[in-house]
């Protein structure tokens, strides 16, 4: 005798209890503190902040813990929390030219005023498993210190700018659109595109940027400058009539310099791609600046070669991993009503084909 599937409510509760148990893992192993995640899994925290569009390392660490290390799930937790927060105002644009850099490199000049600062990078490590880390404890010796440069480090692209060799990017006072408050409309302005890219999925942008390097919308990019460090966030307080520093955020900024032979509308000069992301997230920032540059083909009068990275609608509509994973995974929800209607349709079409075949055989 058939018993209808009931008890969805109890099943959900039980599944949640099971999930909580699995998240904790073996209770004999010490529980992971969110402070440990924040300090020791900092790059994961950075990615969650960047794609979650919320600068809060403690909350990002909590999200990673709750999500059992699934970073897209953690991004989702942060986004869902972020959307409930009241908006007190918009900060002034951050001045990355005055960034207190922990890392600042240029691939286009051997040296530049301020020098190259390698900072905490994997770049020159040998990727050999360090089995000492598997053994517990052990203090890490202090890294050698040097006083911070007294003057702020100028952007390297400004040196090119002086000679008129690179396109100018005039400052504007326009209020940028906010894609979390207005539905995205296409074609999008560059500001809106950059906003979407900045919170886009790192993996998706990485692959798109890589595709431009391999010829699908080639832009000949050099990293003009990559800088990582903290900048002050300032907010205009209407009652006071001036801006007040309300905190600091760590940012990664990448400016690419792209070869450009000129087009019908623009003279030969170097052009720019731009990436700006929360935290030390340099793979993301570099990828973002390549994709930004590829998307600018129309404005620069370049040919549309049909490359995915040139296609604004394709890039912007598919860059958000919270949207993508939701829609992808929803197909595991019940679809038996739709499936039933398909079943009826296939049976009907099959019956017609069989009948026609039988008739032809006679």
């Amino acid at each position, binding site marked *: 005798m058939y018993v*209808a599937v009931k008890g969805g*409510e109890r099943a959900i509760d039980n599944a949640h209890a099971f999930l909580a148990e699995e998240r904790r893992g073996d209770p004999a192993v010490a529980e992971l503190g969110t402070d440990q995640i924040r300090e020791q899994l900092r790059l994961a925290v950075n990615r969650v902040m960047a794609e979650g569009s919320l600068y809060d390392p403690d909350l990002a660490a909590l999200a990673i813990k709750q999500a059992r290390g699934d970073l897209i799930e953690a991004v989702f937790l942060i986004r869902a929390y972020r959307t409930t927060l009241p908006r007190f105002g918009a900060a002034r644009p951050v001045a990355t030219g005055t960034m207190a850099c922990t890392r600042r490199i240029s691939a286009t000049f051997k040296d530049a005023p301020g020098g190259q600062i390698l900072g905490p990078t994997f770049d020159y490590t040998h990727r050999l498993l360090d089995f000492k880390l598997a053994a517990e404890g052990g203090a890490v010796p202090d890294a050698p210190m040097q006083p911070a440069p007294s003057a702020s480090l100028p952007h390297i692209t400004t040196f090119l700018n002086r000679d008129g060799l690179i396109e100018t990017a005039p400052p504007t006072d326009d209020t940028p659109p906010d894609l979390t408050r207005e539905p995205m409309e296409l074609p999008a302005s560059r500001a809106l595109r950059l906003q979407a890219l900045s919170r886009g999925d790192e993996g998706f942008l990485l692959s798109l940027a890589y595709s431009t390097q391999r010829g699908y919308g080639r832009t000949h990019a050099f990293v003009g400058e990559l800088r990582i460090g903290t900048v002050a966030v300032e907010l205009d307080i209407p009652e006071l009539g001036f801006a007040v520093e309300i905190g600091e955020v760590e940012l990664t900024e990448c400016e690419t310099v792209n070869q450009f032979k000129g087009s019908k509308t623009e003279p030969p000069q170097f052009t720019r791609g731009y990436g700006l992301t929360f935290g030390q997230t340099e793979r993301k920032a570099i990828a973002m600046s390549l994709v930004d540059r590829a998307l600018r083909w129309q404005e620069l009068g370049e040919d549309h070669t049909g490359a995915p990275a040139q296609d604004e609608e394709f890039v912007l509509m598919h860059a958000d991993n919270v949207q993508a994973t939701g829609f992808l995974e929803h197909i595991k929800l019940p679809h038996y009503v739709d499936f039933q209607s398909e079943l009826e349709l296939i049976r009907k079409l099959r019956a017609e084909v069989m009948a026609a075949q039988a008739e032809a055989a006679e």
Partner: protein
Amino acid sequence: MTDHSYNFAYLDEQTKRMIRRAILKAVAVPGYQVPFASREMPMPYGWGTGGVQVTAACLVPEDVLKVIDQGADDTTNAVSIRKFFQRTAGVATTVATAEATVIQTRHRIPEQPLTAGQILVYQVPIPEPLRFLEPRETETRKMHALEEYGLMHVKLYEDIARHGSIATAYAYPVRVEGRYVMDPSPIPKFDNPKLSDSPALQLFGAGREQRIYALPPFTRVVSLDFEDHSFHASKAPHDCDLCGASESYLDEVITDDAGNRMFVCSDTDFCRTRREAGHVGRLGKTAGGGA
């Protein structure tokens, strides 16, 4: 057990106002997809975030809410969404179609005819009926603006040329008041006739795609077809094995390893009500006797 750390029905009032404006516009232009600034919800995209936002914007404390998925009140996602509103809005809930003032649904329209004053909220995955003919939003918006639906008719014609009939079984496109072609969400085409001239307000929310559209009460909705190939609302050619209903949409359930199957109403409230009224199907017992 209302959760007081969030606003009534979760969304803040500004967001609700923004959604209500979109709903009003949608009601004013039936079948037109109104862009709205969809928010991240605490459930994933694809789980009904559009419907949830529309429901949240419509709910008042006196409302009685019913949530169904695949016609059933007890499927996991329906349970989850109902619980969400119990927790954040504290509204009364019901499984009885007639008692509900707001019904959120995924993939079905209840069998029992809706009445004036009721709101039916659909969860919509892809609001654009032309999407699979033209992937670009910039293009499809133009096509709607110019009422350029030739592509859709060609697709339906090609179906007939190839298969002898229109090979769309769910999310079957409709035309609203002779103007906009609309995706009715993935309801089986069996439900399409119920869209038209309904006394209830029908609202459609697509969260990920950031669109809301609507059918105000008594809107004329026509399923696309041709004079010589008219639309046919099809269902499995059986009666419900539990309640004996011949006019309801049926789910096919595999009952044993030998592949035997039975057919039961997909609308669980409809089936239960009939059984309580003494109707018995091929395999059913009367209500209370299990089944």
